[in-house]
């Protein structure tokens, strides 16, 4: 018998038992539905993580520090207490308590800058600016970052130079345009804003305070030094849905300005000239091999390094763990449905003892009979896979707009992304699983003795 005829015949006999076929397929369809959705969610979240990392990190930049925590991508700090090191000093982490972290210094940065494969080094200035304002306007809080020419933000007005920002000019997030009294983003370009920063309380200030012979009495507390700098607005950045900044979009300063502000804030403290980490731009580090090579070299110099790929991978790990959990459940469902197929196929063999006997008597080979039942099982697998996948796609079409809105992913981005090739692979897998499930019943059919099968009672 030709395979094509076997396939057609198997399909025909399934059509003869519609309810049974459909019910058996539905069991697989549940698994297929779950798997299709899980894979789609995995695709969507992976794409989201990619966008997240790409919009927050320059793929060519390596995060370089001195402390092992820099390489800790899981976010959970080491639970064993560390020995106190006098030379490091204390880094206050606000409400989270204090921590001793080895920091990278201006000296380190000069060394890194001189490496031939390094393009540019951008220290991570921890700038706690006080407020941003304009004359006759209210004061607003802000976060400040140094501008990375390798990763231009999307602009709603103005333009950016290909190298660093000119000294004294900034990129202002669009959210400040209205509240600072500009009519539009375009209107703000070329205008100025004032940003205030306050010097940390340092040893010198405390000494000066004591020398003045004042004790801590109300109204007599020392005034911290504050500096207000006026900057020119070079561009307005668009709000980004994938920004990781917790306090909204940062105001971007040129490296010089950022350095100046940080030096002012940290003057006289242990933090002066030290940074938790620095962004080291390596030529061609978008390529994983180049990035890993640079990472190796920097590590051999005693630095701790994380590439953007490492970061991406660590975010992806969380996604993968969650995804595999759901996949395991889906696979259990499919295993359960295998028993359904085995059962259905055994019934099918029993019901068609006569037919099998006749076909064998007329010279059908045992292997053809076996394939007849395996293909019948395969049809059930195909049907179940299709039903599951179609329902999953329909559900995605229905809920994707809602999810996109709820998770504010931005126009055109979806969390459930179906890959036709993946779905085809899944269905093919289910067909194979179904064939395996049909193996024993098929063997029973193939071994049937035609004389016994055709004995009339």
């Amino acid at each position, binding site marked *: *018998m030709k395979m094509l005829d076997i396939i057609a*015949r198997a399909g025909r006999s399934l059509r003869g038992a519609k309810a049974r076929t459909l019910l058996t397929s539905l069991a697989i369809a549940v698994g297929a539905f779950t798997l299709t959705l899980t894979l789609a969610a995995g695709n969507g979240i992976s794409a989201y993580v990619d966008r997240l990392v790409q919009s927050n990190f320059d793929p060519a930049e390596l995060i370089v520090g001195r402390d092992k925590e820099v390489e800790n991508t899981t976010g959970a700090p080491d639970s064993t207490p560390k020995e106190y090191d006098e030379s490091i000093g204390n880094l206050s982490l606000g409400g989270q308590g204090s921590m001793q972290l080895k920091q990278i210094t201006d000296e380190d940065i000069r060394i890194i800058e001189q490496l031939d494969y390094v393009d540019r080094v951008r220290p991570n200035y921890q700038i706690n600016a006080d407020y941003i304002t304009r004359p006759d306007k209210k004061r607003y809080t802000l976060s400040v970052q140094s501008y990375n020419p390798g990763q231009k933000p999307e602009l709603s007005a103005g333009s950016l130079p290909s190298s660093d920002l000119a000294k004294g000019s900034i990129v202002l997030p669009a959210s400040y345009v209205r509240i600072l009294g500009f009519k539009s983003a375009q209107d703000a370009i070329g205008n100025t804003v004032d940003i205030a920063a306050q010097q940390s309380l340092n040893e010198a200030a405390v000494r000066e305070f004591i020398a003045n012979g004042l004790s801590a009495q109300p109204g007599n507390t020392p005034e911290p030094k504050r500096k207000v700098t006026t900057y020119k607005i070079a561009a307005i950045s668009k709000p980004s849905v994938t920004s990781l900044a917790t306090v909204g979009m940062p105001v971007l300063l040129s490296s010089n300005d950022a350095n100046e502000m940080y030096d002012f804030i940290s003057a006289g403290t242990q933090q002066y000239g030290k940074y938790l980490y620095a962004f080291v731009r390596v030529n061609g580090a978008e390529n994983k091999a180049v990035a890993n090579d640079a990472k190796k070299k920097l590590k051999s110099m005693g630095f701790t390094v994380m590439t953007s790929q490492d970061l991406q991978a660590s975010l992806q790990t969380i996604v993968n763990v969650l995804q595999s959990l759901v996949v395991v459940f889906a696979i259990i469902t499919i295993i359960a449905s295998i028993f359904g197929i085995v059962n259905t196929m055994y019934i099918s063999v029993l019901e068609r003892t006569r037919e099998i006997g006749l*076909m064998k*008597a*007329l*010279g*059908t080979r045992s292997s053809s009979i076996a394939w007849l039942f395996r293909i019948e099982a395969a049809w059930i697998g195909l049907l179940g896979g299709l039903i599951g996948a179609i329902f999953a796609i329909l559900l995605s079409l229905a809920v994707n707009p809602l999810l996109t809105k709820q998770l504010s992913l931005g126009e055109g981005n979806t969390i459930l992304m179906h890959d036709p090739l993946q779905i085809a692979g899944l269905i093919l897998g289910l067909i194979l699983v179904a064939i395996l499930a049909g193996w024993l019943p098929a063997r029973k059919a193939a071994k049937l003795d035609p004389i016994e099968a055709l004995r009339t009672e």
Partner: protein
Amino acid sequence: MIELAHVSKIYGKKQNQFAALEAINLTIESGRSVAIVGKSGSGKSTLMHVMSGLDRVSGGTITIDGQDISKLKNTALDQFRTDKIGFIFQSFFVQANETCLQNVMLPLEINKTPRSERRRLALEALEQVELADKANAKAGNLSGGQKQRLAVARAIVSKPSIIFADEPTGNLDTATGGKVEELLFEFNNKLSSTLIIVTHDTDLAKKCDVQIYIQDGKIIKINDLAKKKGAKS
């Protein structure tokens, strides 16, 4: 030509052994009609099974058109049945849920006749048993006599050299049974295929060229009408 030499068929093991066939020697010329007659349990069905390659002999050889089928492998034996044998059973064994056409096309599917040929050949066979108008009707909706005629069409569609009919009229009344008998002998003449009928109906047996009487696994008598005719002349 069918030649059986010292054919035996033994069931069971050791003390429980039971010989269904014992030392059968038989020669059947091609194109003849043969009746194997005996009571139930006499071994007539077993004889048909081993001759048609459905069952294996325990001893002896069965040579059909020069080929010793007792030595064939399973797949070769399947191929032998596909190529040479047509079957008609007492209980018809037509697929009730399939159309008459699909029923008749089954042997053509098995012997890998090209798709385009199958329909034509099957319609031809249905026409010969006067069921052409039922081609697309479900076989389950046919009467008993029609079902057996459908089975005849299925047996002749692949133009076998031997047709085995196991009590072909056993489940039919005299009128419809007569029609089936008529068809069987007609094809026996027209296609010059050998017809072997297993029956305990002596009236039907008498219509055949040769009657082989079997009892307790042994041939007790062979009546060859043609030989007798030959002897007279």
